[in-house]
């Protein structure tokens, strides 16, 4: 399917985003004013040390969490003003998630784990095709407990992309994997981005992964320090750490 990309069209606009946790005596600022745009078809890597607010940012952008202040627009829809059912609808139609710990449903096979998403999507690809995309055509009927960590993560990617989301949000997708396995997973993400044109945000604390991004956002202590554009991006298979 031909994909027409408009690298100048913003998928997300984030303005003045803050998130505060009140924990009795102490107040923790996870985000202290984030401004950022994410464009169609690009790969953005969010880089920062543990605790710098990456997950918080991603969760808000994905409609899983709400900010303390600030706004997020998905295209021209302000999701920070949306209610629970609108957010559900938003996640169902537009967003794919990949988590560090895969979060597969243990009682469902690989194929069924993907199907659970395609069944509620508008124009999904077949679960089998999604799994083929991540190189798991021969593991369709395996349960999560019968798959290695990398395979489980690829099932999670297949599950996330099977509904052809506009954006793919990945929180430390390789965090629980060794480097060789991690690279296989990143290759899958890059392939999805290439073939489907899905805007992809990848969270990592691993600076080496940044090389595969179009842009790298450096986050620390809830603030963006720098946004760097990679003039040449590396193929995932050429990464190493």
């Amino acid at each position, binding site marked *: 399917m031909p994909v027409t990309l408009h690298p100048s069209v913003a998928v997300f606009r984030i303005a003045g985003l803050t998130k505060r946790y009140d924990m009795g005596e102490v107040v923790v600022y996870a985000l202290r004013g984030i401004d950022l745009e994410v464009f169609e078809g690009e790969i953005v890597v969010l880089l920062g040390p543990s605790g710098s607010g990456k997950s918080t940012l991603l969760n808000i952008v994905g409609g899983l969490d709400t900010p303390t202040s600030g706004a997020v627009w998905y295209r021209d829809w302000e999701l920070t003003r949306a209610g629970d059912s609108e957010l559900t609808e938003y996640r169902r139609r537009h967003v794919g998630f990949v*988590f560090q710990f895969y*979060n597969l449903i243990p009682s469902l096979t690989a194929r069924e*784990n993907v199907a*659970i998403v395609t069944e*509620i999507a508008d124009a999904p690809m077949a679960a089998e095709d999604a799994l083929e995309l991540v190189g798991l055509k021969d593991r369709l009927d395996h349960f999560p407990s019968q798959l290695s960590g990398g395979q489980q993560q690829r099932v999670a990617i297949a599950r996330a992309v099977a509904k052809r989301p506009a954006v793919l949000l990945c929180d430390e997708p390789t965090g629980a994997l060794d480097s060789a396995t991690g690279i296989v997973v990143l290759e899958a993400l890059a392939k999805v981005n290439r073939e489907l044109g899905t805007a992809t945000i990848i969270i990592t604390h691993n600076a080496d992964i940044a090389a595969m991004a179009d842009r790298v956002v450096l986050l620390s202590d809830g603030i963006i320090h720098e946004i760097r554009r990679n003039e040449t991006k590396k193929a995932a298979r050429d990464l190493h750490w």
Partner: protein
Amino acid sequence: MTALDKKLLRDLWDIRSQALAIALVIASGVATSVMSLTALDSLRVSRDTYYRENRFPDVFASLQRAPSSVARRLAEIPGVDHVEARVVSPAKIELSGYEEPIIAALVSVPVDRLPGVDRLFIRRGRPVDVGRLDQIVVSDAFAGIHGLSPGDRLGIIVNGRRRMLTISGVGASPEHIYQIAPGSVFPDFEAFAIVWMARETLAAALDLEGSFNDVALAVRPGASVAEILAQVDEILAPYGGLGAYDRGNQLSHRYLSEELRQLRQMATMFPAIFLAVATFLLNVVANRLVGTQKEQIAVLKAFGYSTGAIGWHYLKIVLAIAVLGILAGTALGAQLGKELGELYMRFYKLPYLVLVISGPMVLTAGGLSALAVALGTAMAVRRAALMAPAEAMRPEPPARYRTTVLERLGFGAWLSPASRMIARDLERRPAKTALSIVGVALAGGILMMGTIFDDSFAALVEIEFRLAQRDDIAVTFVEPRGIEVLSELRHLPGVLRVEPLRAVPVRLRAGHRSYRTQLEGVNPAAELRRLLDHRHRPLDPPATGVMLDDFLGGYLGVRPGDTITVEELTGRRRTRTVAVAALVRRYLGVGAYMEISALNRHLGEGIVFSGAALAVDAREKDAVYAALRSRPGVAGVVVRDAAVARVRETMGNNMIVFAIFASLFAATIAFGVVYNYARISLAERSRELASLRVLGFTRREISAILLGELGVVVLAAIPLALVIGRALCAVMMVGLQTDIVRIPVVVDRDSYAYATAIILASTALSALVARRRLHELDLIGVLKTRE
């Protein structure tokens, strides 16, 4: 099938043993309910059909004697549809080869036409033929027990003369569904028969040609029964009328109605308790399921499943369990209900049982159970559905533990690390701990409801037959006799003591309530027939005033010091106001009592007695018995041992069946609760326990931690179970009170021990299962995933 539905099936399969345990609990509740309601509906519909088809009368009256023309006057009362004037009489039956005395109630039937009310149901043979005045129809229970068939002959002694009559048929009548001899409380089909014979024959034997002494009326729909009763009384008064009464006071109808009321009580109380327990269990399981699936819920939400879809998914899991229980319970309940109905039929002589399994009733029982279950899990499902995805995905913060009260009090040094873990865990979640204790305790309490009947019946027999009625043999006379009869009896060889008895039928009134019963004389310083106070101590009768048993006192709404009207139904038939002197405790039957000479003065018929209670030398019992039987003036002889046996047998047939079901179900519940508790603890703590194993704890040590917690809960629950059980029994017995019997609440050590034993056995069994699972704990798997 959608992927979510597959998840549902696999999740169900994962918790199958728990699901099964819960389904069993629900099934028990539904089965009890359907069983009782099926029996109830079947009996009620059978009775109503029988009443309708065989024309059960609406109004009844007995009298001394009246010419047939009076019956025509009765028929003219507005609203009366039909009048059947009859001749009735007590009689004795002689049966070759059977030594015990047999009492018969003789009832006349027209031979040339079908009676307008109270038609016989002929089971075998034929009704009495026209022109065959020596024929009789006998009641089927009596015929069955003695193996009598049409063509057999019986000797019947009526009015002092003996006649041989031929059985033409074996039958029943709607007036005698509950068949008891006058003055007895329980049916004795061997020694009591109803005999229908041609009106001419019976009238001739009683010198009542052209007259009647009993009448039954059918009333038109919509007519005022109360007005008809008053008019019947007025018309019959000059003829020695004993007071007309409606169905509500007709013995058989009243007893059967009471029994059906009891059944309804059972049908609501047991299922309610069972369902409460099931609801509680499901709540715990649903909560746990939600707890363990937090992350899955978050993922589903992250991918756009709505709150409603997730709620429905978890509700479906719960409903699947409920539906399984409901279906199994309904099937089992309908089967048991049919059997229970048949059992009741043997006691109450209904000629047939119309099996009624009412769809709406089953749907109601099922719907209520499903509703209870849905409510029970609503909180958990809501929690699941509303959980914010980001929050749900966050690892649970390490649970906050703190030192326990025990440790703060300085006992810490005595606790091993394992017991410290147990204590802290129990204390950290007091609500969960308390609920678990209550759940186990409820199960134990229900167990006791099943076992209490045994002890209580034993106590009842002990009180009624060792403390109150202590005579060996009681005789009743055909007619009241003068004082000389006492010395006559005392001179029978073997008779040690004689106490006179005096009883007259009366109607008691207080306010708008009235009750027909016997007013019985009580001897001062009685040894044989005594009244007991509330603490079962013998009570000397006060010189004046009437004493009522507390059931009757409650029914009439009177207390000592109040007055009631006593209306004599025989003799001089006066109505007087008498003070209630005391309430006495009785467990069998219902009665009013008066000091015997006061009673005789009250009746104004001189010093006469209607019977006597005898203490007899054990060796001479048979001889005394035979001597009494052969006397013409003796209407009935009751041997206490036989009476005791009959009480035991009757009770055995009735509530005990119910009790057996209840115990079985309760044992199921006890196991269900304890087993679920063990499984849930195991699931919640498997990660922690596996980590301990990785750190080098032995299987024994981690088993001790898990089972120790179970043990503490169970041990705390047992005393509570005994208290709850005692209370449930008391509530049940109040509900089961009737004119026939009130069961004292006596829980002795056996019941407590039994409940304790079943709880402990369930615990042991659950512990075994849990231990096996502990041994299979997946250590690597636990470490592979995140906390």
